[in-house]
């Protein structure tokens, strides 16, 4: 594994693993996340995985209290510790990812921009839905909003630019397309994505642990449901 350390402010260090979004780098990020899940030293506050790196938030003062050496910069000590952990990280493969099924009621009032996507791509609405369902999706990271997945693997032929006039309120559960990305909105937020459907599943569940339905590394399978099924699942939740 090739990596570099760089500080992010005076209480965090970024482990950089590359410059482009790829499955290989994603697996390295996952491998480090798994390592930290198994053994998180107490000076680490938490970690934030992203596409090409993983940021470790730590407490310089806890480090200082632990090493009791005023001349050693906590950052240098933290990097040395992390280097040791990464060297000893023997796992070659990350565990088999979970596949999470996300039922979507496509089109109509649930996906007011499906017609836009159809018009822009020159594909029939049915074809857009089919291509959206057939993607080989992987969750690279969670960010932007609680439980919001950055998903890779959408069929390029249904790529559509963001709306010129962003909506002030996008309902929770909306499934959208922005450029070559697809995503699901966990909470009501403003946004410019082209909305093609809605899922009745709550992606952000503050009472649950973890609070996010999806986690980095998950595979996603979108399935199509009717309005009746949508309402039934929603009722259940």
């Amino acid at each position, binding site marked *: 594994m090739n990596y570099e350390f*760089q*500080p*992010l*402010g*005076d*209480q*965090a260090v*970024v482990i950089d693993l590359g*410059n*482009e*979004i790829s499955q290989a780098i994603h697996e390295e990020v996952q491998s480090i*996340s798994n390592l930290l899940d198994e053994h998180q030293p107490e000076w680490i*506050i*938490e*970690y*934030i*995985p*992203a*596409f*090409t*790196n993983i*940021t470790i*938030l730590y407490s*310089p*003062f806890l480090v*200082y209290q632990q090493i009791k050496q005023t001349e050693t*910069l*906590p*950052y240098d000590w933290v990097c040395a510790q992390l280097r040791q952990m990464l060297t000893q990280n023997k796992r070659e493969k990350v565990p088999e990812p979970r596949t999470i099924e996300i039922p979507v009621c496509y089109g109509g009032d649930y996906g007011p921009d499906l017609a836009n996507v159809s018009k822009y791509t020159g594909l029939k609405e049915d074809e857009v839905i089919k291509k959206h369902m057939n993607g080989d999706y992987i969750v690279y*990271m*969670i*960010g*932007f*909003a*609680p*439980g*919001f997945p*950055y998903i890779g693997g959408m069929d390029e032929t249904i790529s559509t630019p963001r709306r010129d006039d962003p909506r002030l309120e996008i309902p929770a559960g909306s499934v959208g397309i922005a450029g070559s990305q697809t995503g699901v909105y*966990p*909470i009501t*937020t403003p946004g410019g994505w082209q909305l093609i459907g809605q899922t009745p599943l709550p992606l*952000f569940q*503050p009472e649950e*642990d*973890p*609070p*996010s339905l999806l*986690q*980095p590394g998950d595979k996603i399978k979108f399935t199509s449901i009717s309005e009746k099924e949508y309402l039934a699942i929603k009722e259940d939740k």
Partner: protein
Amino acid sequence: MLKVLKSGLLTTIQDLGRYGYQKYGVITSGAMDPEAHRIANLLVGNDQRTPTMEITLKGPVLEFQEDALIAVCGGNLSPMIDGETVGLWRPIYIKKGSELRFGNPKKGFRAYLSIAGGFEVTSVMGSASTYLRAEIGGYKGRALDKGDTINFGELSNSSQKAFDELKDMAGSKPYQTMDWFVATEFSAPIQDEPKLKVMEGREFHLFTDDSQSSFFEEQFQIDSQSDRMGYRLQGSKLELTKQKDMISEAVTFGTIQVPAEGNPIILLADRQTTGGYPKIGQVATVDLPRIAQLKPGEQVSFEQISHKQAQYLLLEREKQIQQLAQGIRFKNR
């Protein structure tokens, strides 16, 4: 219990933030001025992480329905008890039936009200901080409103001693303060047109030479579109040598990022967990409390320090807070 008679501009319950869930996109929230929050707690004998009330510019009116030991730290928003001005940075006993209100803001932007035993609110994911957009944490996931009532927790031993001593001294008066207060650099961080200590950000080198020097030499004005999420700044437009497609990654409290239109944003307590704009700088942790006290419209500039200096300053500050905590424990003994 206390009752909110008037809500003020934005009054929320905060602690030191909801850490541990950023990998799920859950923002940290927490006090904008963590030092004022911590010291307010120390003064009343609480753990530093106990929830306090963050008060913004125009403070609330609060009716105490039982006796309490409180402290107000941070910006001077003119706290008054039953019409009489009370000092900041000290333990205050307040009698049942008295009213704490805030007058015209004198200095700073945010004050922290602590109460011995802490405000009793439900902890969500290990924190009492209010996360307004997701409507979780704090008081019912929202800012305090007229008519709300909040209970206090049990007093610690040191809180009880200070409480008893002040109650004795108070007699029939509505309140009584200790004859000492915190008079260190903690209680005086609020300057006009401050120069904030800032490190180079991860993408500093991607900015043009002109932008790099403007960033550390010129003044920026805090835009009216500034809130707990971030402070937007107006000044020289900051530009990259060439456009670069950034890949989203983690940001932290104090990260200064620059969207395409060229105006920097300082990310604060309610920032998103990740960002996709180039980061030109990062405010040193020791100077975060100074930002929290700046109002929209004020001027700010940046003074460059190294990452190493920032980390040593942080250690120094933590040692000072520890000493202060010991000093207060000794006084309240």
